[in-house]
């Protein structure tokens, strides 16, 4: 399941490359201008991605001292 680690690349694409495609104020999503909404959404998704990577990572099951 080591390939799941590659999910970690997605936040970089979303937050470093992504803004080039979403640099706009509309549509407003949940009261936020679009660019800000995009960033906030990706912070939430990033946390979820890290949780998935954590769950799949055998290193966390070995109870490291």
């Amino acid at each position, binding site marked *: 399941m080591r390939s799941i*680690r590659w999910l*970690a690349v997605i*936040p*970089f694409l979303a*937050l*470093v*490359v992504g*803004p*080039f495609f979403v*640099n*706009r*104020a509309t549509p*407003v999503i949940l*009261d*936020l*201008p679009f*660019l*800000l909404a995009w*960033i*906030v959404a*990706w*912070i*939430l998704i*990033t*946390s979820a*991605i*890290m*949780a998935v*990577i*954590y769950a799949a*990572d055998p*290193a*966390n099951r070995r109870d*490291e*001292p």
Partner: protein
Amino acid sequence: MNGALVIIAAAALLALALGFLASRGKEMTLEQWTVGGRGFGAIFVFLLLAGEIYTTFTFLGGSGYAYGKGAPAYYILCYGTLAYVLSYFMLPPIWRYARDNRLYSQSDFFVRKYDSPALGVLVALVDIVALIPYLVLQFKGLGIIVEIAGYGAISSTVAVWSGAIIVAAYVMVSGVHGSAWTSVAKDSLILGVVVFLGIYLPYHYYGGIGSMFAAIEQAKPGFTVLPAHGESLWWFSSTVLLTALGFYMWPHTFASIYTAKGATVIRKNAIVLPLYQLILLFVFFVGFAATLQVPGLTGSNIDLALFKLSVKTFDPWFVGLIGATGVFTALVPGSMILMTAATLIANNLYRAVNPAADDRQVAKLAKLLVPLVALVAVFFTLKGGDTIVALLLMGYSFVTQLFPSLVLSLARRNFATREGAAAGIIAGVATVAVVSLSGANLHALKWLPSAVQDLNIGIIALAVNFVVLIVVSLATRQVVQPSSVAAE
């Protein structure tokens, strides 16, 4: 004494009390004092990392940036998130190596990996040059906060001195334990106060967050998107990338990893910390709310936006509570910086010239250095002029120069030699200094495409660093190659 001042004073005393109590029942050896006996669980490590990350810069600077510049402030949200993603993979091997080799500082890491005390001295010097201005920034912020939130009853000079004495006292006694304990109060306060402000102010002045952004869009079209030139998309992306790499290179952040009792503690934090980042969203809301309500602040005064609006909106006791929060955002990171700087001087500069010194002597010296470092920072806070501001702007770029040789050293076979690492760091730091001090930027080169002109100039320093590292490593590697080939 007004109501606000009572609350701010109470906060300062609370910090002092927590800071002292933290040392109870522990013998403060160097290992306890500087890395908490490597026994901190997920919550304490979280508190330390959150404690260092949410500084006066986030509180005053974050809201000020949104107030003054709008969308470019979003970069602060992005780089932290990406740094946490990196941390999941990068920090556990660092932690393990530090535990196995009983390391105390970031500089120790380089000493061991590259088997070179001289490289350790270089890293320690870069660290200290970056840390002192960062401490000065905290003290400066503290002074501003107490002066405004106390309605001018206490001058910033008095506030800076009091803050410095408090933080130096509890760092001497409790070390990193003091930072962790005061972090508890700080994070509860900041969570409560900032989220409240970020929601209340937009509703109070605009009737909601959506209508606030609508009002801003009408008054300042394009304020919530990145501009076409200057702090443009290219600036944004390069800055996010660069600061994400430099994030854990801050020596006090780096050393706080050592306090973890296990690698899973660090990995768990990589899940939670991005969410915690979202506090910044509310800081931005405050800045955005202020932009139409207390207009006219320019230059470095944009950092006053949060307090100007608060004083205009709330009763003194509540302004005092905000002030108390601000005081904690200065003291907690200040304590980490102070302890780290003292450890670096004692453990990596003093010990380099006097290798016979044992841990007990180094611990004693580090504790004695704490008030001295604080004094130096107070001096620069009160007397330092433009130099300190210049250093401050360079600090982040300086520590980022440690990234290439650090990451390469994590590989099973390190390509970089100690000469290469040292040369790369020196070249990178020199580039940062020359570029920053001469005020050069890519905008002067009119023939470049505007996308390239907007790139964060730190990228160039990192590139120079990397090229020098490779070239020097190749050159110095050839000398040893015959014997290493023979050994295989």
